[in-house]
């Protein structure tokens, strides 16, 4: 299942692709104050597939957004590789997102006026780069999109659309890919399909993926799960299975 390289990197102790230190995010003031993140310190290892879970309002999405440079922390720090996001302005953050981060959102992942292949290469073209043709074709091949490249998003199924989104995220060989409930809008078959492809991206291409989900089955595809509650990291689980995850999640209800 695993390639030699990922196996090796796991053993040696993996490099950190992204991390936060005492991350805090506070919305509102005074009585209306909400602490979405309340001192989160967490590392995400390179070449790993990590899932972030937690009940609604636990801060899991906020953590993802702040790590991805879409939102800023109230205090604390977030790093992509060595880059401290709090020191970057809007333009630098944009470039960082373009060149070093990949995104898969729950929905509205694609530009409707562009074909599948144009969507895949969009970040590259925004950067004015040609990209590596071999790499792109291997990515779309891996994602099973080779015969769908000229289709517009409206002509693709939900699962295909999300696969295009994953392919786009992979196209720039980013340091890390963030998924925000990437299978949330899909039926279980299409969801399985997309998760399988994401798993392959990690195993075969050495990609780092961090995904927020509330679905235990989706989370079971990850190497590791970080559990959040009330803006804090409360638990972790390595090599999860769906049953174990479900079991853990039930405890949040108590």
């Amino acid at each position, binding site marked *: 299942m695993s390639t030699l390289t990922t196996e090796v990197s796991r053993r040696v102790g993996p490099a950190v692709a992204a991390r936060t230190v005492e991350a805090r995010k506070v919305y509102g003031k005074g009585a209306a104050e909400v602490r979405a993140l309340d001192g989160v310190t967490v590392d995400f290892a390179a070449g790993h597939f990590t899932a972030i879970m937690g009940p609604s309002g636990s801060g899991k999405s906020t953590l993802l957004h702040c790590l991805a440079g879409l939102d800023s922390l109230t205090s604390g720090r977030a790093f992509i590789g060595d880059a401290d996001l709090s020191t970057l302005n809007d333009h630098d953050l944009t470039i960082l997102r373009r060149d070093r981060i990949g995104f898969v959102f729950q929905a509205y992942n694609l530009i409707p006026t*562009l074909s599948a292949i144009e969507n895949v290469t969009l970040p590259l073209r925004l950067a004015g780069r040609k990209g590596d043709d071999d790499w792109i074709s291997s990515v779309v091949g891996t994602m099973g999109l080779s015969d769908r490249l000229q289709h517009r998003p409206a002509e693709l199924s939900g699962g295909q659309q999300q696969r295009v989104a994953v392919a786009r995220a992979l196209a720039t060989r980013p340091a890390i890919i963030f998924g925000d409930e990437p299978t949330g809008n899909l039926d279980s078959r299409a969801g399985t399909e997309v998760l399988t492809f994401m798993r392959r991206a990690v195993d075969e291409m050495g990609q780092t993926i961090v995904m927020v989900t509330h679905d235990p089955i989706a989370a079971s595809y990850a190497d590791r799960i970080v559990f959040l509650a009330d803006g804090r990291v409360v638990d972790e689980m390595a090599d999860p299975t769906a049953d174990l995850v479900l079991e853990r999640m039930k405890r949040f209800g108590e």
Partner: protein
Amino acid sequence: MLRTSWKGLLGHKFRFVATALAVTLGVAFMAGTLVLTDTIRSTFDNLFADVYQGTDAVIRGKASFEGPPGAGVQRGRIDAAVVDTVRRVDGVAAAEGDVSGYARLVGKDGQALGNPATGAPTIGMSWTENRALNTFTLVSGTAPGRDDEVVIDRKSARDGDLEVGDTTTVVVGRPMRVRIAGIARFGKADSPGGATIVAFPRQAAQRLIGEPGKYDSVSVLAAGGVSETELVRRLSAVLPPGTEALTGAAITAETQSEMAKAFRFFNTFMLIFAVIALLVGGFMIFNTFSITVAQRTRENGLLRALGASRRQVLGSVLLEALAVGVLAALLGIAAGFAVALGLKGLLAGVGLDIPTGSVVFTSTTAIISFTVGVGITVLAALSPARKAAKVPPVAAMQEGATGSTGYGSRQRMVVGAAVLGLGLAALLIGLFRDVEQPVVIVGAGALLVFFGVSILGRTISLPLSRVLGAPLPRLRGVTGALARENAMRNPKRTAASASALMIGVGVVGLITIFVSSTKASMDAAVDRAFTGDIVVDSGGGMFGGVDPGLAARLRALPEVDTAAGLRQGVAQVAGSAVMVQATDPRAAVELMKVGPVAGSPADLGRDAIGLHEDVAARKGLRLGDPVPVAFKDSGTRSLRLALIYGENRQAGNYLLGTEAYEANFATRMDSKVLVKRAAGTSPEAALAAVKQVGQAYPGAKVLDRAQFKAEQTKPLNQLLALVYALLGLAILIALLGIANTLALSIVERTRELGLLRAVGMTRSQLRSTIRWESVVIAVQGTVLGLLIGLFFGWALVTALADEGITVFRVPYASLAVVVVLAALAGMVAAVPPSRRAAKLDVLRAVVTE
């Protein structure tokens, strides 16, 4: 439902204001025009009522014929002896003969005042001694005593920096030195309608301006107890045939109505632009409501699901339109005052000076402007409102339902093509067939063409955007590609935005082509018909000129081979009131190349006339036939058709020899002098020599061939500037429309834009995308407009071939500039929406609630 409409408006203040603004500008223009014309009319009405207050009766020659446009009714002069006859009538307290004609006053700096060729007339007249009868009132100095003393109007005194006691020049054909004896005002105004006035003592006026022993009219003052009507009855009994008497009240009313008639043209001219502006505003309203209705599909579905009837949904949209319309109309009416002042300034800029009076705002203005403003808004919102009412309740449950983006059904194409065809037919019939009210038919046709093209717009918009945007991906990479795709994704919307711009640009294109064709035709006519080197233009316009002595002096110069004066006057030839030209028959051959089709210029003697071949053909006249010609000074004569000639702009369509002219016109003035240099003299030397002589005639311009061509087309440039300024408004509204459409599209594409930003599009790349989309829309409207303008221009020029516009010239460079300007304007229009888009909160845009 009322609450829903109201909340909807308050929720989108920016959109509300931007939409209202489009209609506001149109209404302001219309209200401004109405206010200004009412003000002008009232000012002149008061002015004439005031100056004729003391006049109880006026005696004048009976109308001989109605002159060509701009010349007015032609009347013969009356014998000076009539004054004595009138004075003996019982009940006459005083009677004075009046003379009026052309004179040109020169200011302190040596420059002639006023420009009778393009602006208000320059009038020479007799000073009326009786204060009650005099329409002028001295403000300083005295009445003119000696023959070289004059009274001038206060406006000219101010413009020419002249004071009582100053000596200056007046050109009455020939230049003469005069002393300013007095300065007068006309009623409460400084001058009658901006005209320049020079009043001489009566006999000097007869000699210098009119005809010795003749008057143009006689003003009569009644003795106490005799009514105006009674006075006129008694006068009529003793007047010789060919003269008439009318009451002071009648002359006041007649002058007032002539003034109103003169300004009716201006009124119509301005209202055309108001209609264009309102039409463009209507497009914008339609577009805005179409988009907002589409965006609110879910909301309207929800209303329907909750039990609102179709009528209620329809009503809520129309109510919103009504609110927009009312606000816009009220603001527009208020802004109309400012527009009235602006228009006045604009007109003053092109030489139409209007006296100042208090601004007149009538209830009619208010009612018309309000009704039109509200009406257009509601009408434009009708179709979007009906679409909103058709939203099924289930739309409330459908994700992302934003209405159709398709590009036109077959039915739509048929309707569009039919409207376009009808418009083209009306246009061509109006232009080429002899019909009643051609202007109305052509106008309606033009309107239908615009509507037809905008209906077809959705169908043509997609391929057009594709073609126009084709270079973008290569020029601007992915941002360009996205811009092009965005312009293509909703052809309906792109087409409607472009249509609004198309109208203004279409008219710009038409006028530009028309003017360039006219210029080219004039240039060609000069080349074809003028073989000389230099032209001295008297600058006297339709009725003025310089003394024939100038031509004689020029002929005497060693640098000059030959010089001949060209005169003009009003006559009625075989039933048509026309301008006739007159010149020395020899000069007609040597300088004007009057190519005879039949006969010979040499035969243009005292009782002969020459006609353009088309005129002769139309009137069914052949060489040697008698032609009845009526002159105001000499009455009706029968002239022999001695010459039939081909196209010749210098000679016009009706040509007399100098002898015939002098036999029938009292004035002796050349409107132009054509000069041919002597062999062996350089053009520069000849020009310098002619200039040396011409200097003595202030107001006259010495021009070489190139300058002469340019001078002829100068009034066209002024017209062009005026029209561009007025159309600028319509184009501004259209650009506002594009900005508004883009702003609304951005709201619609929030998620998409957020996604683009999330995956690495920088703010400047995002702005660039929107900017280029705007450019595609703007250029599309411009290209369509120019195509329509090109067709209109071709049709108009072809229709006017008989009027001497023989060359169809498309000014490609100017039109290319228009396209480039449109592209730049599109970029400017995109500034506010693209800024808004760039400030978008990425997170809010991409995260699903």
